[in-house]
Each structure stands twice: as structure tokens, then as C-alpha cells.
């Protein structure tokens, strides 16, 4: 088999320009496919609830955008006393754009003394917790946010009318944390002119996932006749509900992915047909020497697999690098969806590229040996 692969590689190198153009075409198609898959995957990760999810989000009823949701901060103690609630953290969110946007800047104001306990997944990449605690205008910036803005610890920056000092760059397994800037709650309440004692939401952790519904109902019931009634839902369900626009937009991109895959299929099949037609005589010579129809077909299939694999790797790696280094986030109503490359998407896209190469080569492989040898030898 290794000799056949070497032979196919040499055959591909014969017409370098044609092979290069085909590879670039495959790479472009697979780039698009991998990009679409990355968006789909990122959305799935952000919206699909798992058995481990134990977080509820409490918003002002019917007001999900941070610019309109207002809840009294003192709800904190009431929520914390509800059975099944493990932790509560009040959060003030300030965003630059409440509508759909590709460059969302999100400040999360939280009590600095509570953040570490509430969110132990946060890891310091640069700077320190102490630096964050010591300055009221300090910010802990998610690594994707920092990369996008070119920020490092010690920098100052201003956005949405809020001036902060970067105390630390953080990373977390939670994609949202990598795309926001955590600041002190009182500072943000004042800087954003919302006012002290008012927050956007409460994030509530319950003891176990099966308590999510009952605790959510209890919270909403508690404040139902209050001046500021609440709407409490599991974090990911809330995200899925609020991100409908993004979901529709991203669902549409699936068609782009299908188009890209179809284009790759056609491109590789066309290239292989051209290759097969240009080598009719050579194929006949190989058959005369003793290569069977199956072996000749394998040579064509291997060329298809190589075109799919090499072009696919180029395109998929480019897409991977593109999303890794550009750190895109899709935002809507204060929620950020980080378009993060994943190994799962990478492997699946490589598998698709190989499958496309294989599929595209089947007809050319059959065509290569469909005529009787004597006819092709005399052609």
C-alpha cells in the first residue's frame, strides 16, 4: 500500500499547477465548512444543558437586556435563604451593544470578595487576585477579550464609558468568562450610572441539577408580587431562549457548509476525471504490466484521498488558526457566544475531507478501467 501511496503522490506532482489549484479549492471549501461547523459547535456547547449544570439566572421579568433589566441588590439575601440554593452572586452587566454584534464588550460587575468562591474555575494567566482586590477600578479580563483588544496586565482601557485598570488576564473552562471583563460591582454601578444597589441579574447555584426547576419556581414565586418580579431559568436554557436570533443566523450557515462540501466534492471529482482522462494510455500500460482494475482504481481513490486530506488539512488548519487567533465572539442582548475552535470539529472536518475525497474518486476510479484494455491500449 505504501508503494501505491507513493505512486499516487508522484502522479499528483506531475501537473503541479492543477494539483495546487485543486488543493486551494478544497482548502477554501473546507475552511468554510470548518468555520460553519465551529459556529454550530460553539452554539451547541453554549446552549445544550448537561446533567452537571446547576446554575440559574435571575432576570427582571420580561427584560432580558442588561440595559433594561434592573433588580434590587438586596434580593441577594432573600434568594440565598431559599432551600436548595448553594450560592448567589449579584451581577451588574454593562455592554456596548445590546443587539447582535460580532464585537461585544461586556463588563461584569461582581462583589470582588465573592468572585473567587463563586467561580473557582477562573485561572490567572497574568497579574494577580491581589491586584484585582486592591483597586476599585481593577478589571480581570478574559484571555480572548484581552487578545482581541491587545491588553496585558497593567494596561488601562476605556469602553462603554467605563475606565478600568487591567489587574489580571484570566482564563476559564467557561467560554463566557474568556470574553468578559470582571470589575468591582460598586465601581460598575457608579461608572455606568445605574446606581448603587441595583444589579442586572443574579446568578444562582443550586445544590443539584434536579433542583433547578423547583428553585427557579420558588424564586419567581417569592418576588411575584414584588415591585420587580423576576424570571428565573437555567443558565443554558436562558441562553438558548435569548440567543434565538443567533441560532437562526447560525442555522442558516449550515447551508453554507453544505454548499462548501458540495463544491469540494465537485472540484475533486472534476480534477480526478481530468487526471483519469489524461492518463488513459498510461492506465492501459499499467494494466498490461499486470495491475488489476481494482489496483488501478485504488490509485485513483488514493489520489482523491490525498487531495481531500491535504487540501482539507490546509483549509481546516487555517480555520482553526483563524478562530484561535481572532477570538470572535457573537453577542446578542448581553450574551456572548465565543466562536472557539475545537478538536472535535477539527477531527470531524478531517474525516469529512477524507470522505469527500473518497466519494469524489469513485466514479473516476470506475471510469479509469471501464473500457476493455485492448481499446484503451489502442486509443
Amino acid at each position, binding site marked *: 500500500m505504501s508503494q501505491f501511496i507513493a505512486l499516487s503522490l508522484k502522479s499528483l506532482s*506531475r501537473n503541479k499547477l492543477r494539483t495546487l489549484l485543486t488543493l486551494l479549492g478544497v482548502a477554501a471549501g473546507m475552511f468554510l465548512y470548518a468555520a460553519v461547523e465551529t459556529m454550530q459547535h460553539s452554539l451547541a456547547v453554549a446552549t445544550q444543558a448537561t446533567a452537571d449544570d446547576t446554575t440559574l439566572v435571575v432576570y427582571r421579568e420580561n427584560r432580558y437586556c442588561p440595559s433594561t433589566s434592573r433588580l434590587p441588590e438586596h434580593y441577594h439575601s432573600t434568594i440565598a435563604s431559599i432551600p436548595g440554593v448553594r450560592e448567589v452572586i449579584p451581577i451588574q452587566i454593562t455592554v456596548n451593544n445590546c443587539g447582535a454584534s460580532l464585537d461585544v464588550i461586556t463588563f461584569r460587575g461582581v462583589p470582588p470578595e465573592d468572585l473567587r468562591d463563586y467561580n473557582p474555575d477562573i485561572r490567572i494567566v497574568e497579574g494577580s487576585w491581589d491586584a484585582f482586590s486592591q483597586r476599585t477600578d481593577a478589571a480581570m479580563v478574559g484571555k480572548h477579550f484581552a487578545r482581541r483588544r491587545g491588553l496585558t496586565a497593567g494596561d488601562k482601557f476605556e469602553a462603554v464609558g467605563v475606565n478600568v485598570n487591567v489587574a489580571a488576564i484570566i482564563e476559564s473552562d467557561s467560554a463566557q468568562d474568556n470574553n468578559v471583563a470582571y470589575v468591582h460591582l460598586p465601581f460598575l454601578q457608579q461608572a455606568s450610572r445605574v446606581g448603587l444597589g441595583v444589579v442586572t441579574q443574579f446568578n444562582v447555584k443550586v445544590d443539584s441539577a434536579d433542583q433547578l426547576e423547583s428553585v427557579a419556581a420558588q424564586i419567581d414565586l417569592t418576588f411575584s408580587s414584588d415591585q420587580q418580579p423576576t424570571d428565573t431559568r437555567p443558565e443554558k436554557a436562558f441562553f438558548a431562549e435569548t440567543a434565538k436570533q443567533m441560532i437562526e443566523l447560525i442555522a442558516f450557515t449550515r447551508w453554507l457548509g453544505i454548499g462548501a462540501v458540495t463544491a469540494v466534492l465537485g472540484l475533486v471529482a472534476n480534477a480526478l476525471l481530468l487526471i483519469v482522462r489524461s492518463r488513459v494510455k*498510461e492506465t492501459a500500460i499499467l494494466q498490461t504490466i499486470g495491475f488489476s482494475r481494482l489496483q488501478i482504481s485504488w490509485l485513483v481513490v488514493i489520489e482523491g484521498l490525498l487531495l481531500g486530506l491535504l487540501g482539507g488539512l490546509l483549509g481546516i488548519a487555517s480555520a482553526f488558526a483563524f478562530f484561535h487567533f481572532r477570538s470572535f465572539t457573537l453577542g446578542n442582548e448581553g450574551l456572548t457566544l465565543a466562536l472557539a475552535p475545537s478538536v472535535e470539529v477539527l477531527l470531524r472536518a478531517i474525516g469529512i475531507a477524507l470522505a469527500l475525497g473518497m466519494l469524489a474518486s469513485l466514479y473516476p476510479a470506475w471510469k479509469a478501467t471501464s473500457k476493455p484494455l485492448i481499446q484503451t491500449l489502442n486509443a
Partner: protein
Amino acid sequence: MSDSAYIHIQSLTKSYHKGKTLITPLQDLSLDVPSGEFLALMGPSGSGKTTLLNLIAGIDSPTSGLLQVQGRDLGGLSRAKLTRWRSDHVGYIFQLYHLIPILTAYENVELPLLLQKLSKRERRQRILAALDLVGLADRATHRPTELSGGQEQRVAIARAIVHDPGLLVADEPTGDLDRESADSILGLLDSLANDHGKTIVMVTHDPKAASAAHRTLHLEKGQLISGS
């Protein structure tokens, strides 16, 4: 059938349709070729000599009659079995050499061995021996475009003999060569028959090439008309 006949042909007919016309390039032809003979087939264009050569090589199948090579009835073999048989027993030498241009002389000669279960070392030994036999051991790394016509044909002969087939078929192997190169190739074929026991069937238009063979047969309209 003679006991020593390597190729035994009896009442062989080949016909095919071209549109609505039935073409019969070979009709009721009988022939025995003993092992180790160097046989030349001559005749005008359309006389059926290349058709006969292709039938003997297992590239085409007869319409009727008996065609045996080393006692094996080729007429009864399927396309796949004929291919397998060719890879073991036949070396084919073309007029225009038909080397694969992107491969070196070494790699071209290696092609038939890719179908055999041999180690890389065994393949290398056989390839170098074949190239040495045709006098091109020092051209192993050259591509066809870097070789003369005579050298290309020598590489093609090395490719035809590297898997040690008993039968060599040559379709006008000197037709595209100058006299000097042609004589050299004919000398090589003669040596393969006399010194290495190969049975060789060669189609040629060139009387001088035919004179290098042990025996020459003339075909006309699909039938043998004379032999010398």
C-alpha cells in the same frame, strides 16, 4: 501439439464488430512456438500480427479456437485472471516504450514488482540486476526525458524482464529507433532468448529486425502465409 511448444495455437479466430461490420483480423490460425524461441511476426498493416501478439500476451481474448501458453488455456480465463497471469508470465515491450514520465528508470522498472510479495531489498536486487542486464545500471536515477530513445527502450525491456516472465512480447520494439540503437536492442532480445531462455514473440515491419529472430512468420489477412 509438440511436447516442447511453449505457445500452442490451434484454429484461432478473433473477430469483433465495428459498427455493423464484423471484422475478423485472425481466422483459423494455428501455430506452435517452442520454449526459448525468438519468433518474428511480419506482415502488412491490418494483417493481424498485433492482434495475434495481444492474444498471446493475454491482453485480448480469442473468439474461438485454442490458445495455450505453457499449457494454460488463455481463452478460458476471466479478465481478472488474465491480468494476474500477465503479471506473472508476460513482459510486454512497446514500440514507444511507454515509460511513466514522472518516475525514474529505477521506479519504472520497479512497477511490475509492486504486484509481487517482495521485500524492498529483494525488489532493489532484482531492479539493479535487470538494469545491469540492459546496460543501464548507471542510469537508474534518470527520468525518461533524460534518456535517449534506445536507452528508454532498454529501460522498458528491463521493466519487461524484472519479474522474470517466461514470455516476452514485443510490438515493433525497434520501430522508433535509429539503426544503431535498433541493432543493440535486437542483440539484447537475442541474448534474452539464447542466454536466459525467454520465449520471445516480436512484431516488426523491419526485415533486418526479423532476421535477428530464430524464425519469421508472415501474416496476411489474418492467416499465416509463410515461415522461414
